């Protein structure tokens, strides 16, 4: 009960604060619009299938990734500068639950970005929407969100160790989107790079999400099994890392700006 309250209040207050921020309005509305236009123009003359799969879903996924992973990273950075990070860290509450609450809050807001992107793509380009299986698409979307949440937790843990959060995030944003095949198939990448793609859950989440739309490429189960395995690996890794990372954060003193 009490731990649920830590997650719940961290989540609701996270959303309350985010709404109070002007930059967020940009990330929520303008970001998805720009992503959609860039992808839309790039794919304008390709077939209808890939348009839905890569523009409609692609920009949606990109926006989702951006807001889940980035808002969590941004929050850690902001809270480091306002010295609230080290303070919430030093309370009796489990820091994992605080972070989880924040990530949940960001995820709910990110869904807004996702649907806005899809909406922009549809009204701007009016593609013929064909979805072979809506039920599977829904399941895939839930699993995609779960995969991003796990990645976000992982990133949030690592970022407590470095004060240079913003640099890391800027280095990661676009490469990660390309590596995981958000906007073009990873088969277009060099073979060696593809091995790295396979290691990350979002790669499989994207494939899973595309199948119900196109019914080509990886089948649902072919994407589902690696997705669940990679998610489990990252979740376990995050679990193992937690103790070491937060011990190290106290040793390095990276939780606040002295």
């Amino acid at each position, binding site marked *: 009960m009490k731990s649920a309250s*830590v997650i719940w209040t961290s989540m609701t207050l996270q959303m309350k604060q985010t709404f109070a921020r002007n930059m967020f309005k940009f990330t929520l509305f303008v970001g998805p619009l720009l992503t959609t236009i860039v992808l839309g123009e790039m794919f304008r003359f390709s077939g209808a299938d890939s348009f839905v799969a890569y523009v409609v879903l692609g920009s949606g996924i990109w926006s989702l990734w951006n807001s889940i992973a980035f808002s969590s990273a941004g929050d850690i950075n902001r809270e480091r500068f306002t010295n609230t990070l080290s303070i919430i860290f*030093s309370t009796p509450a489990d820091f994992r639950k605080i972070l989880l609450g924040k990530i949940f809050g960001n995820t709910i807001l990110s869904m807004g970005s996702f649907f806005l992107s899809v909406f922009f793509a549809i009204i701007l380009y009016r593609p013929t929407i064909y979805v072979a299986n809506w039920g599977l698409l829904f399941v895939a979307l839930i699993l995609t969100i779960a995969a991003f949440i796990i990645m976000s937790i992982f990133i949030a843990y690592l970022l407590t160790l470095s004060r240079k959060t913003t640099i890391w995030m800027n280095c990661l944003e676009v490469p990660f989107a390309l590596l995981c095949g958000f906007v073009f198939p990873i088969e277009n990448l060099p073979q060696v790079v593809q091995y790295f793609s396979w290691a990350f859950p979002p790669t499989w989440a994207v494939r899973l999400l595309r199948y119900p739309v196109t019914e080509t490429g990886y089948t649902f189960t072919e994407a589902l099994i690696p997705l669940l395995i990679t998610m489990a690996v990252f979740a376990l890794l995050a679990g193992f890392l937690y103790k070491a990372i937060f011990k190290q954060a106290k040793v390095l003193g990276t939780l606040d700006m002295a």
Partner: protein
Amino acid sequence: MAVIEVKDLVRDFTTGDGLFNRNKRTINAVKGISFHVEKGEIFGLLGQNGAGKTTTIKMLITMLAPTSGTCRVLGYDVFGQEKQIRHRINFIFGGEYGIYRRLSARDNLKYFANLYKIDKNIRDKRVDELLELVELSDRADTRVETFSKGMAQRVQIARGLINNPEVLFLDEPTIGLDPLGAENLREVIRKLQAGGTTILLTTHNMYEADELCGRIAIIKQGELLTLGTPQEIKSRLTPRRVVEVARDEITLEDAYIQLVKGSDGQ
């Protein structure tokens, strides 16, 4: 058992400058200090900017790991036994940071009440009482970002008292407060002490230290310079200085300045 036990406490920071952090430098913030604080004491930690006061407090409140030495609160190690300590202590840092500026004062306090696992039944009442105590009841539901510096500081004070801590760490708590606000806080501190709370306080206000603290430690560049009651410290003033002011007019500030300066060999 002493409530706070510090023995040969050391904390180093390694910082990296330049490309790829190549110019590594180690700062010895705390260089082996020892002291202990008994239950119900108000203990002052004084020293120049950069002396290592905040670093020491951060170790005591389980925020930072000691590099070496003993650092125990309520009989538990601050590094490794955080769980046993955290719900029984709290801390107040001077300044406007450390609270959520985009939330109201009440939301801030309620949130921290949750983080300190305070029962829902008593939470709202406690929050109201604390808002009353720091005289923010009428502004409780406006965002902290619209507050003046001193008002934001009061929210911090209320936050630090949210769990009725047995041990309270105060790092320049009166900074930014108007004279009345500062006097009110000193009143609160005295009341807490009367109720058995152990308090460790840093301040640059010597009058405040003299008035509040039962014992004082002065640290300089991470090392303990002197430790004793304000009276003892004042009486250590060397005769050279004493001829200038009448004995009973010697302030803690006089003693402090002479001690800190004197240790430079001046």
